């Protein structure tokens, strides 16, 4: 089932890297939580497009990101604008991003989700052990602490929870100083899904970073798949 869903995404995007909104659509279909949002193709980008916002009932504040199969696009200057509070701001930001990022095929507009503990879940094909799933502290922490651990993929729910418990920052997940524990069910489900996706052998790497954990769930704020 996971394999079929992944296959149909890869068929659709044949010959290029899937874009963020396409990966998120896949993950959503597999039961993971992603922010509410929609993709506006560059060609269709008109004031009309922005009106879609109302029909999809997105709530401010919003995020706009360049959508491109070229993975480097998003790290270019001004490829992402956060904290958008009005329709006018949205239209301006989107036009600017399209002007700025030459390879952009459109923009992804999403509700901005604040709070939560930023973690990273990923998968890759290890040269010695084959498909492995990774979990660790994400966002800015990942660059400094490198607090990650790996497990063979596919991983069961139990193995996924054990994987999470092996990172040094595990205490942050359980809740410190009266803060509540994150939703371990949602975390385990996300890790199991990532591990099954990488274990299909159809992709080279997958990254959910950040995966925002809170008592309410696990939100995939950004996702990449490399084929």
């Amino acid at each position, binding site marked *: 089932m996971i394999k079929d869903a992944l296959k149909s995404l890869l068929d659709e995007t044949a010959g290029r890297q899937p874009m963020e909104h396409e990966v998120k659509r896949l993950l959503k279909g597999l039961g993971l939580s992603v922010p509410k949002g929609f993709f506006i193709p560059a060609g269709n980008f008109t004031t009309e497009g922005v009106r879609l916002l109302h029909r999809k009932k997105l709530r401010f504040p919003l995020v706009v990101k360049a959508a491109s199969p070229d993975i480097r696009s998003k790290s270019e200057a001004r490829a992402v604008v956060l904290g958008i509070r009005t329709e006018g701001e949205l239209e301006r930001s989107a036009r600017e991003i399209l002007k700025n990022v030459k390879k952009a095929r459109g923009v992804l507009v999403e509700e901005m989700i604040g709070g939560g503990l930023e973690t990273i879940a990923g998968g890759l094909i290890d040269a010695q*052990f084959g498909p492995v799933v990774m979990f660790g502290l994400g966002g800015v922490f990942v660059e400094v602490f490198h607090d*990650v651990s790996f497990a063979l993929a596919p991983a069961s729910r139990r193995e996924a929870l054990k994987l999470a418990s092996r990172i040094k920052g595990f205490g942050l997940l359980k809740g410190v100083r009266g803060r509540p524990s994150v939703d371990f069910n949602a975390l385990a489900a996300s890790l199991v899904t990532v591990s099954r996706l990488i274990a299909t052998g159809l992709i080279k790497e997958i990254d959910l970073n950040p995966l925002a954990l809170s008592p309410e769930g696990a939100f995939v704020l950004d996702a990449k798949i490399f084929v």
Partner: protein
Amino acid sequence: MKSLEPLFNPRSIVLVGASHTGLKLGGVVLKNLLRLRPKVRVFPVNPKFRRLMGVRSYATIDEIWGDEIPKSKNDLAIIIRPAPETPGILEELKGRVKCAIIVSAGFAEAGRMDLQEAVQRIAREGGIRLVGPNCMGVHNSSNGLDTFILTAERLSRPHPGGVAIVTQSGAVLSLIFEAFSLSQPPVGSSITAHYGNAADIDESDIFEYLEGDDNTKAVISYIESVRDGRRFIRRARALARRKPLLILKAGKAAAGQAAAFSHTGRLAGSYRVFKSVLAQFGLAEAADFEDLVDGARALALQKPLKGNRVLILTNGGGAGVLASDECARQGFYEAGMPPRKLARFKKIFPPFYVPGNPFDLTAQVKDEDYRTVLEGLKEDYDGFIIIALSAVRGITEGLGLVLADFKRRSGKPMVFHTGRDAVGQKLSRTLEEAGIPALNSPERAVRALRKLLKKD
């Protein structure tokens, strides 16, 4: 498992590249092999000599079998000839030997993948299990088999004992042999295997053999890389279920792998993944070389710890504190003492002793004090870290008997640290014979004990 019996326990050995002098590699090996006679038949091959070191030598491989039809199989061939000659030699040995060790270098490690693939293919076709190339081969202290090209004068072999050594590096093998022989007291080995480029036999095959080797009580393994990680994990787990296995993985600083498009790819250094997978399956890892050797001693001598409550019993405050710090780093639980017992120790001991954990018997200690404390607390702790700084007058050789006696009756895991003066050395030997390893620092004693704690 059966298929490696001719490698570790051969009844007949063909040595291709034998030499008449101990100054050449082929002579060093021949000299060692001849010690195995008459239980083992040895066939040296050298085109120039009819006799070598007093035994018949053969000009060609064919000559060994002569007109014999069908050709009987010998157990093992050892090949010490330049790499380009080895495919031809192996071709001639097809159907005639069960196992072969290619000692020679100059294969994949030197960029000659073609030569390595050639010997790999010929061995597979000929049903020959292959060790190497680029390796020292095997040492088996139970039957005297020794295929190493380093002389015993330069590199002393460990005495027979319970630790098997499986190593990807010959240099590390020599470091381990040195550490085993020179440590006080020395550590004994069972089977040692250096598999080099692992064209066929690798760590996983050897793990499988060692599962059933009764002389081997514990296994240590130095690994730089494995070819098939999943198979390695299967075999390592199977072995670890039967006897302790301690792994030292080298190459810890290796950078991220894969094309590394993603954060995941950049973070996935091969060591990070390796370490995680060992942890995932509860396989024990040594932090460094010293840890590997110390761990080997502890594992070969004692049963696993049943829990993580440990007592530090010392006659020097600072030494106890160092041990205590290491206990914290290693995740040991330095459980406090039951109040009733604490009160009793305060009553029977002089007022300047410091009961507790660590328990400090101070420089005024007497040997019998160790017995009093251990007997009083044997049910309260899972393991004991004993420190006896032997510079003080009250520590005598008699302490060895006290501790050995406690060990025998309680069966509890113990580690020991003492001085290196004459008394300390004698104590270490007595205790090692009683199954209590003596380590060179309080921290190393704690780490060695930690190796006895099974992971979940």
